[in-house]
């Protein structure tokens, strides 16, 4: 079943076209990452799916219903983590969750939900006005999970979270998807999407400029990967170039830089160098993700803070991959 479908969905605000002829088809059980820089039209799209904003033209269905006609039925079956929405300062964390459960007629265990999103029973008794930004985001995520929703729509879910919080949220998202739920989430941080998503769509200036698995997109662009290894006694470049998956090698002092057709060739390069000499350090930056994003969004000079985070997250992911291997 197609859980989210849009056909030529368009929204204009005066002269500005925020979303331009968007076609999406998200299938049941999928984790779909909706990527793009700030202002690309991601939130406007989500707000149209949630009937917060009325479309200018085109059509959309969520769980088979048109949001503009059956918002109530949709809301009964989805969990939403909106972007930039403040919670109610005067209500406690527990009151927020209880309210959400009552409104959906759900009988969730409130204490268990607090614990699941990393809030203590004590936190649950405090008014949300005393919460940090990260705690509020955890609570909001818990509210989205109430009532066993068929679809989770998460708009920039990691905003305000520290790296541990982001990691925990990713794990819960994966658990939810394993339970058969569909997850649609937007982000401007690539590494986050890479770690959990089955498929991604990249928005830029209101248009969907690319869609597919990350491997598909990498393949389309033929961007490859790269690795940099510091060794005590570097071999000649030509010795490594015959390795499978290696495109080019440069040697400078004690550093060997290799460009590769894909990340799987990294281990081969490191193993080969380890046989020949002593490996002193490995710098593995999957810059291709950054390149991928920037190629599609024309955002060569990406916001430094954001791209810094993206690289970090990508590195984390790499490290985990390597450890696994």
């Amino acid at each position, binding site marked *: 079943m197609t859980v989210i479908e849009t056909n030529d969905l368009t929204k204009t605000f005066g002269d500005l076209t925020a979303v331009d002829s968007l076609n999406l088809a998200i299938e049941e059980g999928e984790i779909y990452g909706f990527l793009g820089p700030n202002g690309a039209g991601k*939130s*406007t799209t989500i*707000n149209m799916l*949630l*009937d*917060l*904003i*009325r479309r200018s033209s085109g059509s959309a269905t969520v769980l088979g219903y048109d949001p503009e006609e059956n*918002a*109530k*039925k949709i*809301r*009964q079956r*989805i*969990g*939403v983590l*909106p972007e*930039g*929405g*403040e*919670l*109610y300062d*005067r*209500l406690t964390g527990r*009151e927020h969750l209880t*309210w*959400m459960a*009552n*409104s*959906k007629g759900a009988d969730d265990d409130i204490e268990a939900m607090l614990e699941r999103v990393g809030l203590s029973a004590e936190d649950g008794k405090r008014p949300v006005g005393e919460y940090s930004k990260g705690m509020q985001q955890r609570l*909001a995520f818990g*509210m*989205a999970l109430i009532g066993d929703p068929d679809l989770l729509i998460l708009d920039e879910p990691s905003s305000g979270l520290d790296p541990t919080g982001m990691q925990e949220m990713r794990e819960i998202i994966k658990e939810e998807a394993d339970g058969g739920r569909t997850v649609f989430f937007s982000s401007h941080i690539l590494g986050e999407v890479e770690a959990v998503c089955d498929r991604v769509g990249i928005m830029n200036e209101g248009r969907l400029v690319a869609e597919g698995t990350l491997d598909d997109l990498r393949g389309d662009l033929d961007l490859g990967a790269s690795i940099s290894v510091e060794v005590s006694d570097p071999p000649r470049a030509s010795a490594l170039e015959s390795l499978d998956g290696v495109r080019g090698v440069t040697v400078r002092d004690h550093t060997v830089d290799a460009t590769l057709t894909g990340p799987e060739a990294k281990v081969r390069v490191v193993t080969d160098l380890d046989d020949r000499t002593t490996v002193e350090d490995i710098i593995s930056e999957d810059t291709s993700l950054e390149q991928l994003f920037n190629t599609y969004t024309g955002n060569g000079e990406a916001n430094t803070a954001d791209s810094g985070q993206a690289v970090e997250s990508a590195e984390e992911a790499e490290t985990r991959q390597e450890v696994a291997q």
Partner: protein
Amino acid sequence: MSAIGVMRKDILDVRRAKIVWFVGLLFTLVTVLFFYQINEFGGIDGFADVLLGLWNLVFVGALFIPAIALVAAYLSIAGERESGSIKFLLSTPINRRDLVLGKFLSRVTVVTASLLFAFVVAAVLSLVWFSDLMIGTFVAIAALTLLYALAYVAVAIAISASTATRSRAMGGALAFYFLTNLLILFNGLSIDAALDYLLNDLLDLGIGQDPINFVTMLISPTQSYLTSTTLAFPEDFLVNQGLNPDAAAWYVQGEMGLALLLAWLVVPLLIGVVRFERANIG
């Protein structure tokens, strides 16, 4: 009922806001002062003291109650739009109409609670100080005053449903208060007097007071309320106060005041629902 769910959650939230209770208590305090004054200095010969107490309460209420109602409700929707919490509210299984009606019911509950408190205090004071309640008049005035308050709550909800920011909602509420209340109550500066001056002194059309009064009733819940309260007082008391309802045309009688007050309850609410149905919440 989804609107009831919105109401319950909103009451939970708003009952912790001190400002609403503060304004309500202020009204109770003013009522007590007016009753005390009559107890000290006496009422009008030949009439129960409580009648003058209620008569004064109507005029104090005419000024105070719109302020209470507007303060209690003008931020109810616009405030949530500005903070973004409305996105959480609209992620629960409700539609937009439920949201507007639920907010209305919640704020109506709060305003009703604070007015009932004031009237219960007034009733107790009447019995203690005046030894007489005039139960029919008392209940009628309480009911009309409550309806008057709810009409202003409906207006505040409509303003709040039509604006996206706190400052615009406040501007709208202040403008409405100024136009329909202050400019009605202060003789000489009133819309009433301005119309009379324009139509009769400048244009010399010779239009009577009744049509002018009707227009001010139409544009102001305050004027409709004041007119409607003539239904509650005994006729000889009204004559004593310098009013002669029999002399006025049918369309400026108390019944018309009551009908227009009801319209001021329903129409703004409908406008609020329609306006909010069309809003972009981004």
